[in-house]
């Protein structure tokens, strides 16, 4: 009786776990599946494509696109007509290779990458010093600053968007593309700074002070101990915080949508994807492939720091 009940229990339990996993991963499976399907296969509820179609990925990654739009008859005509010069042939071909239709995935990817990694890096550097000051140095006003940093948790980005946009446009920061890029970079850095400070501060507290004391005795300066002891010992936490900040900036849509309005060449991936979706209909395979490719870096980064991140979030508190 007892045994039967435990077998029954085990089956129910396994089913529940499977259900949870399915709930969490289904949209990702759907994404992968649709990105690999042909249009005639979209309505088929099965997740396994009847025939694998990687055209969407090829198009996004710009593989073998040069000849795609040229009709066969034109190709034949060009090959047979000997009297045309090479320049003339090229001019004819160029007419068909309209690049306006191609989604500039690489450019958007590069923009996102530069913005997210630079802002995260600067944020982490400021946070290392700030967090050291929070957790190790005793002085008046420390508590107040710490609490104000926490208070920033309550401000939604929409509250900052309007004043920041008004300020930066009235002082002419966002009238050039370089200025816009730097403004957005600074904003991302600011948005991630409070969480970096908080998470790193909590981590630094776990490093025994005696290590630093022995360094002082050896004649190490205060800054020297940050460089030689704190940073090497908390490298994993620093990387975690960096990746966390990177993900916030990589995923950001609101500020980018307002600030990048007049500079579409600076578009980040979220903005580009949204435009692709709004401007054209029924291109699910391309949309899904683009979603897949923009989620991939984040998922890979996340997998590498998963355990650390879980620890950092639960021990250090977290902000979105």
């Amino acid at each position: 009786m007892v045994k039967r009940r435990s077998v029954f229990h085990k089956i129910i339990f396994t089913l529940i776990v499977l259900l949870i996993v399915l709930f969490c991963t289904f949209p990702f499976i759907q994404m992968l599946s649709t990105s690999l399907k042909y249009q005639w296969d979209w309505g088929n509820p099965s997740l396994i494509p009847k025939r694998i179609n990687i055209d969407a990925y090829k198009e996004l990654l710009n593989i073998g696109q040069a000849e795609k739009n040229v009709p066969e008859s034109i190709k034949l005509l060009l090959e047979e007509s000997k009297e045309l010069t090479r320049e003339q042939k090229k001019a004819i071909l160029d007419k068909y290779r309209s690049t306006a239709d191609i989604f500039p995935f690489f450019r958007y990817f590069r923009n996102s990458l530069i913005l997210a990694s630079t802002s995260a890096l600067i944020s982490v550097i400021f946070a290392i010093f700030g967090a050291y000051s929070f957790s190790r140095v005793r002085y008046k006003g420390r508590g107040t600053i710490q609490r104000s940093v926490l208070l920033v948790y309550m401000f939604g980005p929409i509250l900052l968007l309007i004043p920041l946009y008004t300020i930066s446009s009235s002082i002419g920061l966002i009238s050039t593309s370089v200025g816009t890029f730097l403004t957005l970079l600074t904003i991302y850095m600011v948005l991630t700074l409070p969480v970096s400070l908080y998470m790193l501060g909590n981590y630094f507290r776990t490093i025994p002070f005696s290590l630093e004391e022995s360094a002082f005795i050896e004649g190490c300066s205060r800054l020297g101990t940050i460089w030689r002891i704190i940073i090497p010992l908390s490298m994993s936490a620093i990387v975690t915080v960096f990746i966390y900040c990177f993900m916030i900036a990589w995923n950001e849509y609101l500020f980018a949508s307002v600030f990048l309005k007049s500079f579409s060449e600076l578009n980040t991936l979220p903005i580009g994807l949204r435009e692709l979706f709004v401007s054209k209909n029924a291109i699910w395979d391309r949309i899904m492939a683009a979603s897949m490719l923009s989620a991939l870096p984040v998922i890979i980064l996340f997998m590498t720091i998963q355990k650390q991140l879980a620890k950092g979030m639960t021990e250090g508190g977290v902000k979105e």
Partner: protein
Amino acid sequence: MTINQLQAPGSLLQKMNLEKRETLFGWSLILPAVIIIAALILYPIFYNVYLSFFDVKIMQENIYLGFQNHENIITDSAFWKSVLTSVIYVFFTTMGTAVVGLLVALVMNQEFPLRGVVRGLILLPYVAPVISVVFSWQFIFDPVNGLFMHIAYDKLHLFAERFNLIRSPQTSIIIAVLFGIWKNFPFTYLMLLARLQAIDRGLYEAAEIDGCSSWNKFWYITFPEIYFLLGSIILLRAIWNFNKFEEVYLLTENVKVLPVYTYIKAFTGIMDIGQGAAIALIQFILLIGFILIYVKRVLKW
């Protein structure tokens, strides 16, 4: 004795110096971050209050309106509709993430094979970019190709015709809430799991000896242990969900929660930044009001 007396003023001076140096050092380390936060977060918030009193013109002189913007908003029924939408959205997403997060945390607190892998997979919705998962959700609920309509219409005959749940105004909020729960429950789960694992196993063993049922064990041991954490998480999630923009706007423009309403007012069509600033301000005041009530009632501070 004399030596001690001689040394005392010196060491006091040294101590003073040390304290001063420590303060200076601490401040100089934190100062860059403080300046950045003050200049780019705190100042803009005050500037937002200032802007809400003006008809804001980019590149031109602003026109002072007094409380005109605030009045316009409070008397606008669309604003109150948006407040209601926000309240519904925040309530259901917050409660939903708390319930789902707690259930998943209880399940994941048991030992089973491949638990590490499952834990990683559960966090995926939380870390994936919003923009990349909204399209997948839209596909699932797509009236022509989507799996949901395939099951609900073709197999179960729940509806009279295929329609788009995300686009239709009555049902879009349901999907938005579901999406919010799906996206954010891993946060609640993670926090709760860490707390659950810290509960003393001995308590459960003692309860088992006393013949407690599983429900009683949960209600008398687990729940009191996580009550305050759960309360704090619900508060945090309510604040964050109240401020959510992307997760709603990118999924469906039909659900006009306050941030979406502000965005549409301030940055689309006839851009009215002054009005936008006023809505953002009122929204912030509403949030503070909610936090104060919640902290008093639930967290009993």
